[in-house]
């Protein structure tokens, strides 16, 4: 970047902006991951302090799966991170504040809520109709895929839960958890984590309870706020640092393999998202390329499906933290993370062969929005905010 008018625009110029050296970025990631694990543990601790009564009330309030679904949508749309929503769900399930069955629809809803970011990014093209048509279609296909998957697997989960006592995804995830972990000794192998996380968490709790003399309820409230803020900041930081570490390489990989075929697109979407820890970043990256016409919606679709799978890694990371703490329900954190993964894998298995549904739906709506941009506003406000709020309120009233 030129520093002053008159300077030459040499293509040999170093890229503008200062970047951390590689080793420092790596260290930052390690520290941020550690803080993430601390945040999860703090949150788990706070829910534990709230007691069984709070847990019973929370479970009762989320017992309606439709409410749970839209809580997931709304919460994720507001905080713009499905990773955070699912991490909180992992913590609450492992702490007993939320039942596994009630957490499943929340996780499904989180998948929907996270696609608000790339839809917002597509709005920068609204001034140029054809660009906007392409960008908006490519952005909302993510959301339509998520809705299609919910429309299939939400009723399936509900029905199987009522008939057999456990939902389909819940049952398969529990089986896989048994396969992957020694459920009798879930903390085995995670003891080193316990030793580096617990001292910090215990010190915070002791400070609030003994140092400041706060009650269990107030301690829990402070810890919830602190852990929420910590998790938001840390997840944001992890994404930023990891992205800056890899984006130079990312552009070369995407250039060379830019959606050469569906398999590669899926794999690249999954790997990139797992690395940068954010499906919002990964899916937003391609929106300008869609607008510019370098990619089309059919090329981006498998990439989006892969991104959905890659983002589940954060929930597994959160599950690590709760399993390190041990406890009867510790492995359920892993199970809900598995539900998230399975939900996305199943969605891809069904809606890749049936991709015509979300793709043609996205194209149709994007054509509408390109002619009348207010339809774009309706989509964003309606799908992510108005509808969830309305459903939650109505369900509470009736």
């Amino acid at each position, binding site marked *: *970047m*030129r520093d*002053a*008018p*008159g*300077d*030459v*625009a*040499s*293509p*040999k*110029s*170093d*890229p*503008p*902006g200062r*970047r951390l050296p590689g080793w420092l970025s790596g260290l930052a990631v390690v520290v941020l991951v550690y803080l993430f694990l601390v945040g999860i543990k703090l949150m788990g601790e706070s829910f534990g302090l709230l007691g069984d009564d709070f847990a019973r009330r929370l479970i009762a309030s989320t017992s309606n799966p439709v409410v749970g679904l839209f809580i997931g949508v709304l919460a994720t749309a507001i905080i713009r991170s499905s990773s955070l929503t699912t991490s909180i769900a992992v913590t609450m399930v492992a702490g007993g504040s939320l039942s596994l069955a009630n957490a499943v629809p929340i996780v499904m809803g989180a998948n929907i809520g996270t696609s608000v970011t790339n839809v917002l990014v597509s709005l920068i093209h609204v001034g140029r109709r054809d660009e906007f048509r392409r960008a908006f279609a490519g952005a909302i296909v993510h959301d339509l895929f998520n809705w299609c998957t919910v429309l299939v697997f939400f009723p399936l989960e509900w029905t199987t839960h009522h008939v057999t006592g456990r939902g389909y995804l819940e049952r398969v995830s529990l089986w896989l958890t048994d396969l992957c972990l020694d459920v009798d000794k879930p903390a085995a192998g995670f003891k080193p984590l316990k030793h580096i996380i617990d001292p910090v968490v215990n010190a915070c709790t002791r400070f609030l309870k003994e140092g400041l003399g706060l009650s269990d309820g107030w301690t829990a409230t402070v810890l919830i706020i602190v852990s929420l803020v910590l998790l938001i900041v840390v997840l944001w930081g992890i994404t930023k640092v990891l*992205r*800056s570490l890899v*984006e*130079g*390489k*990312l*552009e*070369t*990989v*995407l*250039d*060379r*393999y*830019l959606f050469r075929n569906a398999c*590669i697109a899926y794999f690249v979407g999954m790997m990139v998202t797992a690395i940068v820890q954010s499906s919002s970043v990964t899916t937003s*990256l391609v929106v*300008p*390329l869609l607008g*510019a016409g*370098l990619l089309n919606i059919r090329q981006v679709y498998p990439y989006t499906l892969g991104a959905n799978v890659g983002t589940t890694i954060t929930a597994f990371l959160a599950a690590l933290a709760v399993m390190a703490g041990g406890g009867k329900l510790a492995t359920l954190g892993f199970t809900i993370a598995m539900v998230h993964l399975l939900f996305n894998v199943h969605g891809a298995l069904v809606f890749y062969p049936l991709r015509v549904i979300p793709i043609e739906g996205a194209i149709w709506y994007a054509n509408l929005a390109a002619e009348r941009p207010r339809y774009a506003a309706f989509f964003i406000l309606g799908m992510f905010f108005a509808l969830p709020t309305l459903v939650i309120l109505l369900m509470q009233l009736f």
Partner: protein
Amino acid sequence: MGMLRELISAWRGRDLLSEMLTEFQHMLEDGEWMFKTVGAVLHREERADTVHNEFFARDKQINSQETDIRRRIVEHLSLRRDADVPACLVLMSVVKDAERIGDFCKNIFEVACLYTMNFDHGPYITPLKELRAEIEGIFSKTRGAFAEADQDVAMTIIKDTKQIRRHCDEMIEQLINDQLPTQKAVAYTLLSRYFKRIAAHLSNICSSVVGPVHEIDHASTGEGKISKRYGAGE
């Protein structure tokens, strides 16, 4: 496994901007080859039918490289928050010049095929040969100046191409007032015009080295302006 190896190699590879710059160098190399070849055809040092396929394949390659670089510019600007915007804008402009050089070489090739007489006598032959030699010499200097961001060499090229363009204009003026047969007059006029345009595009490429983005294609060789520009940042 093969895909994984390729992915790893892509991961370890150079960044997109470096690849674009390398590809642009290849565009100029292809343009230089086309110009040298068409000069040889023009002066009957080579037969047109011998070089025809390779000649037009190179032009197609130049066009494809232009499209490639433009696509990569969009990718680079979209995917990198720290994208080098001025470099990308420069590349966006200069690839057009490199592509136009290829087109004008094709135009010269057409003249060489249509003009059935030899370019071996007459008052315009020597100037045309000199222009050809001068422009041929400028190609590699332009590639070097751009690759190294060498302002001194770039400024020299701009001055040299200004001379070349003036000679072309003088030749056209002379041709207008001459009484040559139609075929000869049209051929020489077109050649002067095409040589002038090729020199101008090489000058445009060099202007990106000596001046800011918004002044590409408009580099001045006036002494006052040169010292003012060189003075900036010293």
